């Protein structure tokens, strides 16, 4: 039996980058196999497979989120016109500093994201899933926050870009990602351990 430890980096990746619920039984099995004579390259391959399978399962389990976000984002022209209308009628948001209309634009985008998130929650409940209040509340904040952070990042990396002043691909992609981020964690678990053997 080997006495050396498995590759430290691979173990760290396995424990920290594998999506979904932590699977201690799997981690233990890999350690046991490595201890019984498996190679470091075998261990690395198993870690890579665990991460790939984990992400595949996460994405498949949340296919409803991706389909809904795609369809809702297809309505982007509608919320863009809403943003323009809101900006035109929100004189109260025009404050005495440059780019102060961004606040009005951000609020209009947030309203649109919240409407999308609310529609997703309705769909989620209609297909018989259980909603957890804490995750719902978190989702409401994550959407606009993600949108703001991504736009700031885009502005920092490229030329100045308004929140909703131009309906370009980056804005649409940002909107899509923000809606996905809001709805992603609404689903509670991917794995199931409900059928325990009666001891």
């Amino acid at each position, binding site marked *: 039996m080997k006495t050396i430890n498995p590759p430290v980096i691979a173990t760290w990746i396995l424990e920290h980058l594998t999506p979904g619920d932590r699977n201690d*039984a799997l981690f233990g099995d890999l350690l046991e196999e490595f201890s019984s004579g498996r190679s470091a390259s075998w261990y690395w391959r198993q870690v890579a497979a665990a991460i790939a399978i984990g992400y595949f399962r996460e994405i498949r389990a949340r296919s409803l989120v991706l389909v809904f976000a795609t369809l809702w984002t297809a309505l982007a022209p509608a919320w863009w016109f809403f943003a323009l209308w809101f900006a035109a009628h929100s004189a109260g948001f025009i404050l005495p500093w440059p780019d102060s209309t961004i606040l009005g634009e951000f609020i209009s985008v947030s309203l649109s994201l919240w409407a999308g998130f609310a529609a997703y929650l309705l769909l989620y409940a209609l297909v018989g899933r259980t909603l957890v209040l804490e995750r719902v509340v978190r989702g409401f904040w994550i959407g606009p926050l993600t949108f703001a952070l991504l736009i700031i990042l885009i502005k920092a990396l490229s030329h100045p870009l308004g929140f909703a002043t131009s309906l370009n691909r980056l804005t649409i992609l940002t909107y899509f990602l923000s809606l996905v981020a809001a709805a992603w964690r609404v689903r509670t678990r991917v794995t199931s351990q409900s059928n325990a053997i009666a001891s």
Partner: protein
Amino acid sequence: MEEMADRDYLGEFELMIILAVANLGDEAYGVPVSRELEKHRNRTVSVSSVYAALERLEGKGLIASRLGEATQERGGRAKRYFQVTKDGLKAVRETRRVLTSLWRRLPELEGEGA
């Protein structure tokens, strides 16, 4: 045809997993199940793919699990033992019945044995 729609036949990998778990009896946890599959398939198996299939089968009620003992060589992590449920055995028998029936309809394969 309506009766068939109610049944959920096992896929190839799922069938192998259930048979391996059934063969191993009380010693069916991730490592032995993976080794059993490797021995009979003559190819390496990803332990995580075995777990993914086991958890999928557990979700269908065909497999049940319980946590076992933790050992030093496992870094203090508990084993997760699996067991085929009554519904699992029923699904295996039904899948075997359908497969056997289909194999027997192939004239050139008759007499090869199951």
